[in-house]
Structures are given as structure tokens and as C-alpha cells.
């Protein structure tokens, strides 16, 4: 098979993955149903591993397929399936178009072996200690998810709303404006920094992120040393002219020594058509090496260029300083009274407990995009530093729809486990706390009851108060912590009712005190 054909296939397959994946991550219309979304993300490596560990099912076995593909062909995952990889290709391609005066070129770089292993071991170690923090920062799919959610989704919203505006002038309402109900500036800023980090590397050095930082890249890279098919340099045909090395966006071809570092090759196939002598090919490595025309040499490790990467990772640490300044609180009483703290953030139903959720979620924000009410919002420090960017229930922005469990259906890592709808309706993720001194019925002596109106279980009911007035009362047993009451509460600036998260989710009691209505004789006369 010719190199240019391989390259075309690679680009085609990349599009096949990145287009649906991206649309899924920014889908404001809720068009893609959860079962399709699970199929689209089936091969995403880290989510699949995490889900496999949790639910142990065939539906989460995508990573095994990736491992097998890698053993056969090498890093096809990095080449085409990983959305962050393809994004870097696009960025690098644009950089090539802009730097027109001379064609973009790469040079062979030495492998940062120690750094690669540190960044591979770190997420595993964190995970074993119950935190997905390091995975959350490094997993390429989740990074791409956040980039899409933070940058592309608002763009889609903007385009949609512009269209809706013009349609509205013509009184056509089929295209309606979509409002992003919340802008979380800290999570956004962090995502911008990550994007800058990846984009600068991609702009200048192609797939440097994949070959130095990415733990999936390192794992699959070392596995692909064993792969059946490899990029091979024929010692007799190769003139060591270095043209292929200049084409190699993984910077892994050492043309002087006529070797390819397969741990870093991302199978872009750009090198093959560039070779003037057909000295570089993609083929069955075991057969060809036996013939003796090809050699595989280990490349010496050189630590000198590790510097800027270590510097770049310093900014992770700088967040600790910010962490100290932001307290996890919402003030729920009037300024005149003692402030009340929300001790725990609220994690989505299906996540079982906050600790479990923090240990599994890689913050890809697919649930954030899928949530029809937008109650799921990226956190900053609500879960603490290690839970940064993981979604939480933001009841100031919205509330959890009683009949909905889409987040559990789409979650690719199993951080939010699939949950039966009837079970979800009884899963208590938090409890409503009533702050009487903020309540309108108490402060203004007029009817309100917005909280009780919205309560799907009537855990918040209205009981007799002064005169004919009714005032809310919360019954913990029936409360599921959906946050409808907090969202609906109209008091300003502080709410009179709010949800305190349950560290471990509990089961609420079913409201069975409801008497059935008597049958009415509809043939009777009217009462007026």
C-alpha cells in the first residue's frame, strides 16, 4: 500500500472519529441519544478503562480493542481516534499554512523518557489513592472534551442565536435561541491555560504533547514497540537525507542512525510519501527484520530539554495559592445574621458518593453538555483542589429534572453510574435546608411557596403560619436534593432554602401518605 494512500486513510478515519465526537461534546440540541453517544466514545481509552474497572462489561471494553489494534499496527488510537491528537494535527497544519515562507519542518528530538514515565505513573498512583485528579489533567479525551465544551459550544450557541435572531425578525420560531445559563470563569480560565499549553506545543513541535506528556501516548507507545506492523527504514535504500525526519510531526525519526522511535510514532504516514528512494515503509516488522535489511536501535535518553516542560507544570501548583483564597461557601442568610456554609458540593445522582465520584471523573464535561437543564456545571474548588473541574450540581443556575438521568446514561467513565429512573427518583444526593429568616413569608408576611411548588416529591410542603399564610417545611425523608426549591426560591441576594450535599448518597422514602381521590359523579349539578 502506498504511503500517500495510508495517509489519506488516516485522515479519513480521523474525521470519522473527531466530527461525531466533537458534535457530541457541544450538542446543545440534545439530538444524539445516549446509546449512540456511548458508541461514539466506545474506543476512548481512559474513559473505557475507568468504566471497565467499575462496571466490568463488554460495553466498556473499548480499551481492549485499542490495545489489540496497537499490538497490530501501533498507535492508531493516537493517530486517528484520540480527538486531542487530531486537534493537534489541525493546529499544526494551520501553523504550517501561516508560516508560509518556509515549509513547516520538524527535527528529530530525543525522548524525554523519565518525564514520560513520571507522567504515566503519576495518574496511576493518584488513582490508586482514590483520586482521578492527575488523569483529569492529562487524559487527552477529557482535555478535548473541556476544550470543546468551553470554546466550541459557546461558538455554536452564538451561531445558533444569531440565526434565531434573524428568524425571529421574520416571526419564525423553529430556530430558538439557546442560553448558556452560567459562565464559570475559573474553570474557563484553567481550560484556557491547558489549551494554550497544548496548542503552543502543537503549533511549534507537532505531537510533542502526545510524546512527552500524554500518559496514554506513553503506554500505547511502549506497547507499540511490540506491534506487528511498524514504520521501517531500509538500510540499503536510505540515504540519510533527513527529508522524512523533517516531515515527522512526532519528531521520532533519526535519519542519521536510520532508526524510528516507535514509542513516539503516531502513525501519520507523512514520512512515507516524502522519501525519494522508498527507503521508509510501513510493513510487517517481524518478517522484514528477519531479512536483515532493517534495524531497530534504542535511542539514548537525553535529559537536557526537559526544562520547559517542568516549568510548564509549575502552574498546576500555583493553583494551590488560589485554592487558599476561595472558600467553598454560599451565604444563605441575610447579611445581618450568621452566614451558613454549604459543607459539601452536590454530586449528580448515580455517582454514589462524592469520594467515589472524585476518584472516577476525568472532567470531560460530556454530562455538562448533555444536561438539559444545565444544572451540571464545572466546579472550581467546590470539591476541593483535587476535584477541580469535575461537574457539580449548581442549584443557583438550575435544578435536576426529576424525570431525567441523561448524565448517568452518557458518562463514559462510570463516574456517574447508569441508574434506573425509578431508583434515581429516590436517590438522595443532598437535603434541603430551610432558612426561615430569609423566607418571604416570614420577612414580608405574604404568600410565596415557590420552593414547594417546584418540589417533585413534596418534601417541601406548606404548613399553617400566621393568619391564613402558609410557610415551607422540609421533610428530609422525602427530599432527594434535586435543588428545584433552591433554584425557585426568589429571595435576594441569599436563598431561603438550599441543598446541602450528601457525601454518600442515600435512599429517600417514597411519599406514600398521599390519599387517592374519591370518584366523582360527573353527572351531578354544578356547585354554582
Amino acid at each position, binding site marked *: 500500500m502506498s504511503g500517500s494512500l495510508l495517509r489519506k486513510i488516516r485522515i479519513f478515519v480521523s474525521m470519522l472519529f473527531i466530527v461525531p465526537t466533537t458534535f457530541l461534546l457541544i450538542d446543545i440540541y440534545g439530538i444524539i441519544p445516549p446509546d449512540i453517544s456511548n458508541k461514539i466514545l466506545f474506543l476512548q481509552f481512559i474513559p473505557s478503562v475507568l468504566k471497565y474497572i467499575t462496571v466490568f462489561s463488554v460495553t466498556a471494553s473499548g480499551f481492549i480493542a485499542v490495545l489489540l489494534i496497537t499490538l497490530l499496527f501501533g498507535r492508531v488510537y493516537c493517530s486517528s481516534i484520540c480527538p486531542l491528537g487530531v486537534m493537534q494535527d489541525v493546529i499544526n497544519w494551520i501553523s504550517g499554512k501561516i508560516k508560509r515562507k518556509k515549509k513547516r519542518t520538524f527535527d528529530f528530538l530525543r525522548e524525554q523518557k523519565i518525564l514520560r514515565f513520571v507522567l504515566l505513573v503519576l495518574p496511576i498512583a493518584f488513582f490508586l489513592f482514590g483520586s482521578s485528579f492527575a488523569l483529569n489533567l492529562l487524559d487527552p479525551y477529557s482535555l478535548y472534551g473541556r476544550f470543546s465544551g468551553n470554546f466550541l459550544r459557546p461558538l455554536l450557541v452564538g451561531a445558533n442565536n444569531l440565526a434565531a*435572531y434573524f428568524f425571529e425578525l421574520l416571526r419564525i420560531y423553529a430556530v430558538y435561541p439557546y*442560553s448558556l445559563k452560567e459562565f464559570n470563569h475559573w474553570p474557563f480560565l484553567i481550560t484556557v491555560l491547558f489549551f494554550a499549553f497544548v496548542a503552543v506545543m502543537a503549533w511549534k513541535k507537532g505531537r510533542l504533547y502526545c510524546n512527552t506528556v500524554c500518559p496514554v501516548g506513553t503506554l500505547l507507545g511502549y506497547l507499540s514497540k511490540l506491534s506487528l506492523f511498524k514504520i521501517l527504514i531500509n538500510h540499503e535504500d536510505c540515504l540519510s537525507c533527513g527529508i522524512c525526519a523533517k516531515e515527522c510531526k512526532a519528531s521520532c525519526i533519526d535519519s542519521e542512525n536510520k532508526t524510528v522511535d516507535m514509542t513516539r510514532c503516531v502513525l501519520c504516514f507523512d514520512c512515507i510519501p516524502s522519501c525519494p528512494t522508498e527507503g521508509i515503509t510501513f510493513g510487517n516488522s517481524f518478517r522484514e527484520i528477519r531479512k536483515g535489511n532493517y534495524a531497530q536501535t534504542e535511542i539514548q535518553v537525553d535529559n537536557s530539554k526537559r526544562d520547559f516542560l517542568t516549568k510548564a507544570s509549575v502552574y498546576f501548583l500555583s493553583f494551590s495559592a488560589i485554592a487558599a483564597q476561595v472558600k467553598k461557601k454560599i451565604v444563605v442568610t441575610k447579611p445581618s445574621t450568621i452566614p451558613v456554609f454549604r459543607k459539601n458540593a452536590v454530586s449528580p445522582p448515580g455517582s454514589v458518593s462524592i469520594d467515589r465520584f472524585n476518584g472516577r471523573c476525568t472532567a470531560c464535561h460530556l454530562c455538562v453538555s448533555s444536561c438539559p437543564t444545565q444544572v451540571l456545571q464545572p466546579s472550581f474548588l467546590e470539591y476541593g483542589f483535587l476535584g477541580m473541574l469535575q461537574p457539580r450540581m449548581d442549584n443557583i443556575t438550575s435544578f435536576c429534572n426529576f424525570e*431525567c438521568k441523561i448524565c448517568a446514561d452518557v458518562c463514559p467513565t462510570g463516574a456517574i453510574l447508569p441508574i434506573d429512573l425509578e431508583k434515581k427518583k429516590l436517590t438522595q444526593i443532598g437535603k434541603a435546608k430551610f432558612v426561615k429568616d430569609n423566607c418571604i413569608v416570614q420577612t414580608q408576611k*405574604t404568600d410565596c411557596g415557590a420552593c414547594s411548588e417546584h418540589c417533585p416529591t413534596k418534601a417541601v410542603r406548606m404548613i399553617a403560619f400566621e393568619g391564613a399564610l402558609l410557610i415551607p417545611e422540609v421533610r428530609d425523608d422525602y427530599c432527594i436534593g434535586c435543588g428545584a426549591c433552591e433554584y425557585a426560591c426568589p*429571595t435576594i441576594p441569599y436563598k431561603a432554602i438550599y441543598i446541602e450535599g450528601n457525601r454518600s448518597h442515600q435512599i429517600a422514602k417514597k411519599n406514600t401518605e*398521599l390519599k387517592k381521590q374519591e370518584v366523582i359523579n*360527573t353527572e351531578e*349539578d*354544578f356547585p354554582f
Partner: protein
Amino acid sequence: MDRRDFLKTGLLAGASFAVPGIYGSYFAKSSKVFVSNYDLVAIKNGEPEVMFDKGIEQLGGMKSFVKKNQKVLVKPNIGWDVIPERGGNTNPKLVKRIIEHCFDAGAKEVYVFDHTCDDWRRSYASSGIERAVKDAGGKIVSGDTENYYQDVTITGAKVLTKEKVHELVLESDVFINVPILKSHSSTRLTVSMKNLMGVVWDRGYWHRNNLHQCIADYGMFKKKPTLNVVDAYYVMKQNGPRGVSLNDIALMKSQIISSDMVSADAAAAKLFGLEPDTVSYIKIADSMGLGKKDLSSLNIKRLIL
């Protein structure tokens, strides 16, 4: 006039010059005055669509309210993500039949929307109303975006002197209010006047500033419903307005039609088993001269099918 309004008006004015007649109705804002023998029609013991057929006939048919080429807004209650049997939203069969009557009377367009409490897309779907509207040839519109709401002033109001109202309310020639009768944790009862909370943007303001007064105040707004059709087929007797289970529902198979919101609400209260005076906003609206709560002074047609 801000730039947005200017653009909008300009575009529409341009269009109406270019295509005379088509956009003309946009400027004809006043609702039609109707004359009928009855102030209120109450119907019982039938299916929602059949009761409406019989009821509207007593008022001279939909032709008395909708003229040729008019733009009609039908405003049901689509507040919640629940199925029709749960009585949280207006019965879709009734909504469908009302739209069909409008088209039969010559309506050019029939729009339907509500500013929902639960997620609007889910509520529109679960309620069966989105389907019903499309089947009847009407247009279902989002009420979930502030862009569609425009500032208005309400003369004669005590508290709620300003509001943001959905543009379809302002632009329709005929406004048909189709509430469902329900118990209500804040206001005891929700019927016609309370249903209009679904055409404004900031309901929180009402809750913060004497809810009952605000409900009555909004009734004073010049774009009043031409007709109120109270759906009392599945009636939520407890745990309203959202309800918890089917146990909350009494099958009352009733309907009330009136162009007077206060009368409709008073009759609905009676039907529900409450004295109209125990519902503060009915009392306030009556005293403000919005309508008549005293049913004995009305000419009522009662139909038991």
C-alpha cells in the same frame, strides 16, 4: 426605541409594504369585542374536545372570536415534565381541538408557548402538547429565552407596574388562555389569572412582591385573554401545582369557558370545592374591577353531557 426594535419594526414595516395584507394584522393589536348571550359556559361529563365543541357552540362558535387571517395565541399550561394523566399540564386533546377551531374560523397562524417551570423541551414533549399542536397545524414556540420578552407597562396595577411579556402576547390578534385547574401550594388554586404567569419573564419578582397582588395586577395589562378555557378534566386536588402521583388526581370531566378571567376563576374555585373569596387574587382582582367573582350576577349556561 432601541436599535433592536428599530430593526424589527423597520423590517416588518418594509415587509408589510411589499406584501400588503400579510403583515397588516401585526398592527391591528386590539382584540375583538364579542357579544354573546352568556357570560360563562360550564360543561360537564364529556371528553375535553367534545366539551369544548359543545361549549364554544353556546358562544356562537369560534367565529365570534377569531376572524379571517388573524394571528392567534393559545396559551396552555405546559409547566411540568409530566404526562397528561398527571394533570400538571393542560390536556393536549383540548389544546388540539381549540387550534382546529381557530383554523376553521379562518385563523392565519396559531402559536402556542408557555414559560415552563421544568425544562421546556422535556415539558413540551411529555405533556403531549407539542405533538398536539403540530398535528393541528399550529406552531409551538419556545418561552425559555429572554430575547422573546419585551418590556411593557401595566396601567392600573398597584405593584406590578412593569413586566417583560412574550412578544407573541403583544402581537397576536386573539389570545386564548387555556389553563388547567389545579391546587397550588403558593396561591391555593391556579386557574386563568395564575396561568398568565407563564407569559412573563421574571416570576421571581411576583413571588417577592406580594404574589396575590401581582397576579391581579397582571390581569390589568391591556392584552387580556379574548377567551379563557379552563380545563378541569383531570383535576389535581392536592400537592399542586406539580403533583406527586396519580393519587392527586380527581377525574372531574369538566370545563369552563368565559371571556372574564375573574368569573372563570370563581366558577373553577367552586368546582374545585373552594369559596372564591378564600383565593386572595380572585378577591383582589374583583375589587380592582378586572371582572366579576359574583357568579349569581352572571348569565351562565350549564351543560351536562
